[in-house]
Protein backbone atom coordinates (compact mmCIF):
# COMPACT_ATOMS: atom_id res chain seq x y z
CA UNK A 1 0.00 0.00 0.00
CA UNK A 2 1.49 3.37 -0.96
CA UNK A 3 2.49 5.63 1.89
CA UNK A 4 -0.36 8.11 2.49
CA UNK A 5 1.87 10.98 3.56
CA UNK A 6 4.01 10.47 0.45
CA UNK A 7 0.87 10.62 -1.69
CA UNK A 8 -0.33 13.80 0.01
CA UNK A 9 3.13 15.34 -0.37
CA UNK A 10 3.18 14.44 -4.07
CA UNK A 11 -0.30 15.91 -4.58
CA UNK A 12 0.70 19.14 -2.84
CA UNK A 13 3.89 19.37 -4.89
CA UNK A 14 1.78 18.86 -8.04
CA UNK A 15 -0.47 21.77 -7.03
CA UNK A 16 2.56 24.02 -6.56
CA UNK A 17 4.04 22.83 -9.86
CA UNK A 18 0.79 23.45 -11.78
CA UNK A 19 0.46 26.95 -10.37
CA UNK A 20 4.10 27.66 -11.18
CA UNK A 21 3.63 26.35 -14.74
CA UNK A 22 0.60 28.57 -15.29
CA UNK A 23 2.20 31.76 -13.99
CA UNK A 24 5.61 31.11 -15.58
CA UNK A 25 4.04 30.70 -19.02
CA UNK A 26 1.93 33.84 -18.59
CA UNK A 27 4.88 36.23 -18.66
CA UNK A 28 2.76 39.39 -18.56
CA UNK A 29 1.37 38.09 -15.25
CA UNK A 30 4.72 38.22 -13.43
CA UNK A 31 7.10 40.21 -15.62
CA UNK A 32 4.66 43.12 -16.04
CA UNK A 33 4.46 44.01 -12.33
CA UNK A 34 8.24 43.64 -11.90
CA UNK A 35 8.86 46.02 -14.83
CA UNK A 36 6.37 48.52 -13.41
CA UNK A 37 8.27 48.38 -10.11
CA UNK A 38 11.59 49.01 -11.85
CA UNK A 39 10.03 51.85 -13.84
CA UNK A 40 8.69 53.58 -10.71
CA UNK A 41 11.92 53.18 -8.77
CA UNK A 42 14.03 54.40 -11.68
CA UNK A 43 11.75 57.23 -12.72
CA UNK A 44 11.07 58.87 -9.37
CA UNK A 45 14.56 60.39 -8.77
CA UNK A 46 14.57 61.67 -12.35
CA UNK A 47 11.32 63.57 -12.09
CA UNK A 48 12.09 65.73 -9.06
CA UNK A 49 15.07 67.81 -8.10
CA UNK A 50 15.96 66.33 -4.78
CA UNK A 51 19.12 66.76 -2.86
CA UNK A 52 20.70 63.46 -1.99
CA UNK A 53 19.45 63.71 1.62
CA UNK A 54 15.90 64.52 0.56
CA UNK A 55 16.02 61.66 -1.91
CA UNK A 56 16.89 59.26 0.89
CA UNK A 57 13.96 60.50 2.98
CA UNK A 58 11.48 60.23 0.15
CA UNK A 59 12.86 56.90 -1.08
CA UNK A 60 11.19 54.65 1.47
CA UNK A 61 7.76 56.20 0.97
CA UNK A 62 8.07 55.62 -2.76
CA UNK A 63 9.37 52.10 -2.12
CA UNK A 64 6.38 51.04 0.01
CA UNK A 65 3.87 52.65 -2.35
CA UNK A 66 5.57 51.00 -5.34
CA UNK A 67 5.45 47.57 -3.67
CA UNK A 68 1.80 48.16 -2.81
CA UNK A 69 0.97 49.16 -6.38
CA UNK A 70 2.88 46.26 -7.90
CA UNK A 71 1.18 43.70 -5.66
CA UNK A 72 -2.17 45.22 -6.60
CA UNK A 73 -1.30 44.85 -10.29
CA UNK A 74 -0.04 41.31 -9.79
CA UNK A 75 -3.26 40.09 -8.24
CA UNK A 76 -5.62 41.84 -10.64
CA UNK A 77 -6.81 38.66 -12.36
CA UNK A 78 -5.44 36.03 -10.00
CA UNK A 79 -8.81 34.26 -9.68
CA UNK A 80 -10.70 35.81 -12.58
CA UNK A 81 -8.94 33.74 -15.24
CA UNK A 82 -9.67 30.46 -13.42
CA UNK A 83 -13.24 31.60 -12.85
CA UNK A 84 -13.81 32.46 -16.51
CA UNK A 85 -12.32 29.27 -17.98
CA UNK A 86 -14.06 26.94 -15.53
CA UNK A 87 -10.95 25.81 -13.65
CA UNK A 88 -12.34 27.09 -10.35
CA UNK A 89 -15.45 24.96 -10.83
CA UNK A 90 -13.26 21.89 -11.37
CA UNK A 91 -11.19 22.75 -8.29
CA UNK A 92 -14.30 23.07 -6.11
CA UNK A 93 -15.58 19.68 -7.34
CA UNK A 94 -12.33 17.76 -7.08
CA UNK A 95 -10.48 19.34 -4.18
CA UNK A 96 -11.12 18.73 -0.54
CA UNK A 97 -9.00 21.70 0.50
CA UNK A 98 -9.60 24.66 -1.77
CA UNK A 99 -7.93 26.95 0.75
CA UNK A 100 -4.67 25.03 0.38
CA UNK A 101 -4.70 25.57 -3.39
CA UNK A 102 -5.41 29.27 -2.88
CA UNK A 103 -2.55 29.47 -0.38
CA UNK A 104 -0.28 27.70 -2.90
CA UNK A 105 -1.35 30.09 -5.63
CA UNK A 106 -0.51 33.11 -3.48
CA UNK A 107 2.84 31.54 -2.54
CA UNK A 108 3.75 31.04 -6.20
CA UNK A 109 2.77 34.63 -7.04
CA UNK A 110 4.92 35.82 -4.17
CA UNK A 111 7.86 33.64 -5.30
CA UNK A 112 7.74 34.94 -8.85
CA UNK A 113 6.80 38.56 -8.13
CA UNK A 114 7.20 39.37 -4.42
CA UNK A 115 10.70 37.91 -4.03
CA UNK A 116 12.21 39.57 -7.16
CA UNK A 117 10.58 42.88 -6.20
CA UNK A 118 12.09 42.57 -2.71
CA UNK A 119 15.54 41.85 -4.14
CA UNK A 120 15.30 44.72 -6.63
CA UNK A 121 13.91 47.03 -3.91
CA UNK A 122 16.90 46.23 -1.69
CA UNK A 123 19.30 46.94 -4.56
CA UNK A 124 17.64 50.32 -5.13
CA UNK A 125 17.87 50.92 -1.37
CA UNK A 126 21.59 50.23 -1.54
CA UNK A 127 21.91 52.60 -4.50
CA UNK A 128 20.03 55.45 -2.86
CA UNK A 129 21.19 55.18 0.77
CA UNK A 130 24.68 53.80 -0.01
CA UNK A 131 24.30 51.74 3.13
CA UNK A 132 24.47 47.97 2.69
CA UNK A 133 23.35 47.56 6.29
CA UNK A 134 20.08 49.41 5.59
CA UNK A 135 19.59 47.43 2.38
CA UNK A 136 20.08 44.17 4.28
CA UNK A 137 17.64 45.23 6.99
CA UNK A 138 15.03 46.38 4.50
CA UNK A 139 15.13 43.10 2.52
CA UNK A 140 13.22 40.90 5.03
CA UNK A 141 10.73 43.73 5.60
CA UNK A 142 10.11 43.86 1.85
CA UNK A 143 9.70 40.07 1.69
CA UNK A 144 7.16 40.01 4.51
CA UNK A 145 5.24 43.14 3.50
CA UNK A 146 4.92 42.04 -0.15
CA UNK A 147 3.49 38.70 1.03
CA UNK A 148 0.99 40.48 3.29
CA UNK A 149 0.01 42.90 0.50
CA UNK A 150 -0.50 39.97 -1.91
CA UNK A 151 -2.76 38.15 0.55
CA UNK A 152 -4.87 41.23 1.24
CA UNK A 153 -5.28 42.15 -2.43
CA UNK A 154 -6.21 38.54 -3.22
CA UNK A 155 -8.89 38.79 -0.55
CA UNK A 156 -10.22 42.03 -2.07
CA UNK A 157 -10.20 40.59 -5.58
CA UNK A 158 -11.99 37.45 -4.49
CA UNK A 159 -14.76 39.56 -2.94
CA UNK A 160 -15.33 41.35 -6.22
CA UNK A 161 -14.44 38.47 -8.54
CA UNK A 162 -17.01 39.33 -11.18
CA UNK A 163 -17.21 43.06 -10.51
CA UNK A 164 -13.69 44.16 -11.45
CA UNK A 165 -10.53 44.67 -9.46
CA UNK A 166 -11.02 48.40 -8.72
CA UNK A 167 -13.77 47.74 -6.22
CA UNK A 168 -11.67 44.97 -4.66
CA UNK A 169 -8.77 47.36 -4.21
CA UNK A 170 -11.01 49.95 -2.58
CA UNK A 171 -12.31 47.34 -0.15
CA UNK A 172 -8.75 46.25 0.69
CA UNK A 173 -7.33 49.75 1.22
CA UNK A 174 -8.49 50.22 4.85
CA UNK A 175 -6.77 46.93 5.74
CA UNK A 176 -3.53 48.09 4.16
CA UNK A 177 -3.26 51.48 5.84
CA UNK A 178 -2.16 50.19 9.29
CA UNK A 179 0.52 48.14 7.58
CA UNK A 180 1.83 51.22 5.75
CA UNK A 181 2.02 53.04 9.11
CA UNK A 182 4.05 50.14 10.56
CA UNK A 183 6.36 50.17 7.53
CA UNK A 184 6.99 53.87 8.09
CA UNK A 185 7.90 53.12 11.70
CA UNK A 186 10.25 50.33 10.55
CA UNK A 187 12.25 52.84 8.51
CA UNK A 188 12.52 55.17 11.51
CA UNK A 189 13.61 52.18 13.62
CA UNK A 190 16.31 51.30 11.09
CA UNK A 191 17.56 54.88 10.89
CA UNK A 192 17.67 55.30 14.66
CA UNK A 193 18.87 51.76 15.34
CA UNK A 194 15.89 51.03 17.61
CA UNK A 195 13.37 48.21 17.89
CA UNK A 196 13.93 46.90 14.34
CA UNK A 197 13.54 43.25 15.33
CA UNK A 198 10.41 44.02 17.36
CA UNK A 199 8.80 45.41 14.23
CA UNK A 200 10.04 42.45 12.20
CA UNK A 201 8.46 40.04 14.69
CA UNK A 202 5.25 42.07 14.60
CA UNK A 203 5.16 41.83 10.80
CA UNK A 204 5.92 38.10 10.94
CA UNK A 205 3.11 37.66 13.45
CA UNK A 206 0.66 39.48 11.18
CA UNK A 207 1.86 37.42 8.21
CA UNK A 208 1.50 34.11 10.06
CA UNK A 209 -2.12 34.93 10.90
CA UNK A 210 -2.92 36.23 7.42
CA UNK A 211 -1.29 33.26 5.67
CA UNK A 212 -3.75 30.91 7.39
CA UNK A 213 -6.91 33.00 7.52
CA UNK A 214 -6.96 34.71 4.12
CA UNK A 215 -6.89 31.52 1.94
CA UNK A 216 -9.61 30.06 4.13
CA UNK A 217 -11.83 33.14 3.74
CA UNK A 218 -11.12 33.33 0.00
CA UNK A 219 -12.15 29.67 -0.42
CA UNK A 220 -15.54 30.45 1.16
CA UNK A 221 -15.93 33.59 -0.95
CA UNK A 222 -15.13 31.69 -4.16
CA UNK A 223 -17.61 28.92 -3.30
CA UNK A 224 -20.24 31.59 -2.74
CA UNK A 225 -19.42 33.19 -6.12
CA UNK A 226 -19.74 29.85 -7.91
CA UNK A 227 -23.04 29.10 -6.23
Amino acid sequence: MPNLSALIFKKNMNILYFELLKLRKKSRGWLGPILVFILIMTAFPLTVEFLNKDLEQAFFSILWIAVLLVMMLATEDIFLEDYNDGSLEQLVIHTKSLSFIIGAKILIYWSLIGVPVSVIGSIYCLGITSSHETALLIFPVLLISSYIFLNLFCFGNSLTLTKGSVLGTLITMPLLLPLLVVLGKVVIAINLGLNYFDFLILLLGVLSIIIVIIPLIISFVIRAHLE
Partner: protein
Amino acid sequence: MTMTYLFKAENLSYKINEKKLFQNISFEVNSGSAIHITGSNGSGKTTLLRIILGISKPTKGFIEAKLTSDICYLGHKNALKQYLTVEDNLILQNLKLNESVYTLLKDIDLYDKLDVVVSSLSFGQQKKLALLKIFLNKSELLVLDEPCVGLDDEAQSFLTSFLRDELDKNKSIIFSSHINLNIDAKSISLNI
Protein backbone atom coordinates in the same frame (compact mmCIF):
# COMPACT_ATOMS: atom_id res chain seq x y z
CA MET B 1 -33.41 -8.17 -6.28
CA THR B 2 -33.16 -4.53 -5.20
CA MET B 3 -30.58 -2.40 -6.99
CA THR B 4 -28.54 -0.11 -4.79
CA TYR B 5 -28.27 3.39 -6.11
CA LEU B 6 -25.04 5.23 -6.67
CA PHE B 7 -26.66 8.62 -6.59
CA LYS B 8 -30.09 9.69 -5.46
CA ALA B 9 -31.94 13.01 -5.78
CA GLU B 10 -35.13 13.54 -3.80
CA ASN B 11 -37.65 16.32 -4.52
CA LEU B 12 -35.08 18.79 -5.82
CA SER B 13 -36.43 22.28 -6.34
CA TYR B 14 -34.63 25.46 -7.27
CA LYS B 15 -35.79 29.02 -7.57
CA ILE B 16 -34.04 32.27 -8.40
CA ASN B 17 -35.66 35.45 -7.06
CA GLU B 18 -38.99 33.70 -6.50
CA LYS B 19 -38.93 32.35 -10.07
CA LYS B 20 -39.18 28.58 -9.93
CA LEU B 21 -36.72 26.91 -12.28
CA PHE B 22 -37.78 23.35 -11.50
CA GLN B 23 -39.48 21.57 -8.66
CA ASN B 24 -39.78 18.12 -7.11
CA ILE B 25 -37.25 16.42 -9.35
CA SER B 26 -36.46 12.95 -8.06
CA PHE B 27 -34.30 10.28 -9.61
CA GLU B 28 -31.84 7.53 -8.83
CA VAL B 29 -28.72 6.65 -10.73
CA ASN B 30 -27.60 3.04 -10.54
CA SER B 31 -24.29 1.60 -11.61
CA GLY B 32 -24.19 1.16 -15.37
CA SER B 33 -27.13 3.45 -16.06
CA ALA B 34 -27.49 6.88 -17.64
CA ILE B 35 -29.76 9.83 -17.06
CA HIS B 36 -30.48 12.33 -19.82
CA ILE B 37 -31.66 15.71 -18.54
CA THR B 38 -33.73 17.49 -21.14
CA GLY B 39 -35.42 20.85 -21.27
CA SER B 40 -35.60 24.08 -23.19
CA ASN B 41 -33.05 26.87 -22.82
CA GLY B 42 -33.17 28.36 -19.33
CA SER B 43 -35.12 25.44 -17.89
CA GLY B 44 -32.37 24.76 -15.33
CA LYS B 45 -30.41 21.83 -16.80
CA THR B 46 -27.02 23.30 -15.92
CA THR B 47 -28.29 24.35 -12.48
CA LEU B 48 -29.49 20.80 -11.81
CA LEU B 49 -26.09 19.43 -12.83
CA ARG B 50 -24.39 21.96 -10.55
CA ILE B 51 -26.60 20.81 -7.68
CA ILE B 52 -25.63 17.21 -8.42
CA LEU B 53 -21.96 18.26 -8.33
CA GLY B 54 -22.42 20.08 -5.03
CA ILE B 55 -21.53 23.51 -6.44
CA SER B 56 -25.04 24.91 -5.94
CA LYS B 57 -27.52 24.12 -3.20
CA PRO B 58 -31.14 23.25 -3.97
CA THR B 59 -33.89 25.45 -2.55
CA LYS B 60 -35.64 22.28 -1.46
CA GLY B 61 -34.83 18.59 -1.48
CA PHE B 62 -31.60 16.69 -1.00
CA ILE B 63 -29.09 14.50 -2.75
CA GLU B 64 -27.38 11.39 -1.51
CA ALA B 65 -24.29 9.88 -3.09
CA LYS B 66 -22.56 6.56 -2.49
CA LEU B 67 -19.53 7.32 -4.57
CA THR B 68 -16.08 6.03 -3.76
CA SER B 69 -14.33 8.23 -6.32
CA ASP B 70 -14.53 11.81 -7.60
CA ILE B 71 -17.18 12.79 -10.12
CA CYS B 72 -15.73 13.44 -13.55
CA TYR B 73 -17.33 16.60 -14.93
CA LEU B 74 -17.24 18.58 -18.12
CA GLY B 75 -19.31 21.72 -18.23
CA HIS B 76 -19.89 24.56 -20.67
CA LYS B 77 -16.48 25.93 -19.77
CA ASN B 78 -13.62 23.69 -20.85
CA ALA B 79 -11.16 24.56 -18.03
CA LEU B 80 -8.41 25.00 -20.61
CA LYS B 81 -5.71 27.63 -20.38
CA GLN B 82 -5.76 29.53 -23.67
CA TYR B 83 -2.14 30.72 -23.40
CA LEU B 84 -0.72 27.23 -22.81
CA THR B 85 -0.01 24.51 -25.36
CA VAL B 86 -2.10 21.36 -25.66
CA GLU B 87 0.68 19.42 -23.91
CA ASP B 88 0.85 21.91 -21.02
CA ASN B 89 -2.92 21.73 -20.61
CA LEU B 90 -2.73 17.94 -20.41
CA ILE B 91 -0.07 18.25 -17.72
CA LEU B 92 -2.30 20.71 -15.83
CA GLN B 93 -5.11 18.17 -15.93
CA ASN B 94 -2.73 15.74 -14.26
CA LEU B 95 -2.70 13.43 -17.29
CA LYS B 96 0.47 11.45 -17.79
CA LEU B 97 1.56 11.51 -21.42
CA ASN B 98 1.70 7.78 -22.13
CA GLU B 99 0.69 5.50 -24.98
CA SER B 100 -3.02 5.53 -24.16
CA VAL B 101 -3.06 9.35 -24.18
CA TYR B 102 -1.19 9.43 -27.51
CA THR B 103 -3.61 6.90 -28.99
CA LEU B 104 -6.59 8.97 -27.91
CA LEU B 105 -4.97 12.13 -29.23
CA LYS B 106 -4.57 10.39 -32.59
CA ASP B 107 -8.22 9.27 -32.48
CA ILE B 108 -9.42 12.83 -32.00
CA ASP B 109 -6.90 14.35 -34.44
CA LEU B 110 -4.94 16.32 -31.86
CA TYR B 111 -1.71 14.30 -31.81
CA ASP B 112 0.12 16.66 -34.17
CA LYS B 113 -1.12 19.68 -32.18
CA LEU B 114 0.65 18.92 -28.89
CA ASP B 115 2.85 22.00 -29.13
CA VAL B 116 0.10 24.28 -30.42
CA VAL B 117 -1.26 26.99 -28.13
CA VAL B 118 -4.89 26.28 -27.22
CA SER B 119 -6.08 29.72 -28.35
CA SER B 120 -5.02 28.71 -31.89
CA LEU B 121 -7.33 25.68 -31.87
CA SER B 122 -10.89 25.83 -33.16
CA PHE B 123 -13.81 25.64 -30.74
CA GLY B 124 -14.45 22.00 -31.70
CA GLN B 125 -10.79 21.05 -31.20
CA GLN B 126 -10.81 22.70 -27.78
CA LYS B 127 -13.92 20.71 -26.89
CA LYS B 128 -12.21 17.50 -27.98
CA LEU B 129 -9.19 18.37 -25.84
CA ALA B 130 -11.46 19.00 -22.86
CA LEU B 131 -13.19 15.66 -23.49
CA LEU B 132 -9.86 13.87 -23.27
CA LYS B 133 -9.98 13.87 -19.46
CA ILE B 134 -13.46 12.31 -19.71
CA PHE B 135 -12.04 9.61 -21.99
CA LEU B 136 -9.32 8.90 -19.44
CA ASN B 137 -11.49 9.13 -16.34
CA LYS B 138 -11.26 6.81 -13.35
CA SER B 139 -14.62 7.84 -11.90
CA GLU B 140 -17.78 5.94 -11.19
CA LEU B 141 -19.98 8.83 -12.29
CA LEU B 142 -19.60 11.10 -15.32
CA VAL B 143 -21.50 14.37 -15.44
CA LEU B 144 -21.57 16.05 -18.83
CA ASP B 145 -23.22 19.35 -19.69
CA GLU B 146 -23.89 19.60 -23.44
CA PRO B 147 -20.89 17.44 -24.38
CA CYS B 148 -21.67 17.49 -28.10
CA VAL B 149 -21.59 21.25 -28.62
CA GLY B 150 -18.98 22.07 -31.25
CA LEU B 151 -18.21 18.46 -32.14
CA ASP B 152 -18.32 17.17 -35.72
CA ASP B 153 -20.25 13.96 -36.63
CA GLU B 154 -17.15 11.79 -36.34
CA ALA B 155 -16.29 13.11 -32.87
CA GLN B 156 -19.91 12.77 -31.77
CA SER B 157 -20.03 9.10 -32.75
CA PHE B 158 -16.65 8.58 -31.04
CA LEU B 159 -18.10 10.12 -27.86
CA THR B 160 -21.28 8.03 -28.14
CA SER B 161 -19.39 4.77 -28.51
CA PHE B 162 -17.12 5.78 -25.61
CA LEU B 163 -20.13 6.45 -23.38
CA ARG B 164 -21.67 3.08 -24.34
CA ASP B 165 -18.41 1.38 -23.37
CA GLU B 166 -18.43 3.22 -20.05
CA LEU B 167 -21.96 1.99 -19.32
CA ASP B 168 -20.81 -1.55 -20.16
CA LYS B 169 -18.04 -1.07 -17.60
CA ASN B 170 -20.79 -0.37 -15.03
CA LYS B 171 -20.09 3.33 -14.83
CA SER B 172 -22.92 5.86 -14.54
CA ILE B 173 -23.56 8.94 -16.62
CA ILE B 174 -25.70 12.03 -16.08
CA PHE B 175 -25.79 14.36 -19.05
CA SER B 176 -27.72 17.17 -20.61
CA SER B 177 -27.78 17.50 -24.36
CA HIS B 178 -29.95 19.02 -27.05
CA ILE B 179 -28.30 16.67 -29.52
CA ASN B 180 -29.57 13.12 -29.19
CA LEU B 181 -26.78 10.86 -28.00
CA ASN B 182 -27.61 7.37 -29.07
CA ILE B 183 -27.20 5.67 -25.71
CA ASP B 184 -29.64 3.89 -23.46
CA ALA B 185 -30.66 6.57 -20.95
CA LYS B 186 -33.58 7.43 -18.74
CA SER B 187 -34.88 10.88 -19.61
CA ILE B 188 -35.79 13.60 -17.10
CA SER B 189 -37.56 16.62 -18.50
CA LEU B 190 -37.34 19.99 -16.77
CA ASN B 191 -40.02 21.56 -18.92
CA ILE B 192 -42.94 22.44 -16.70
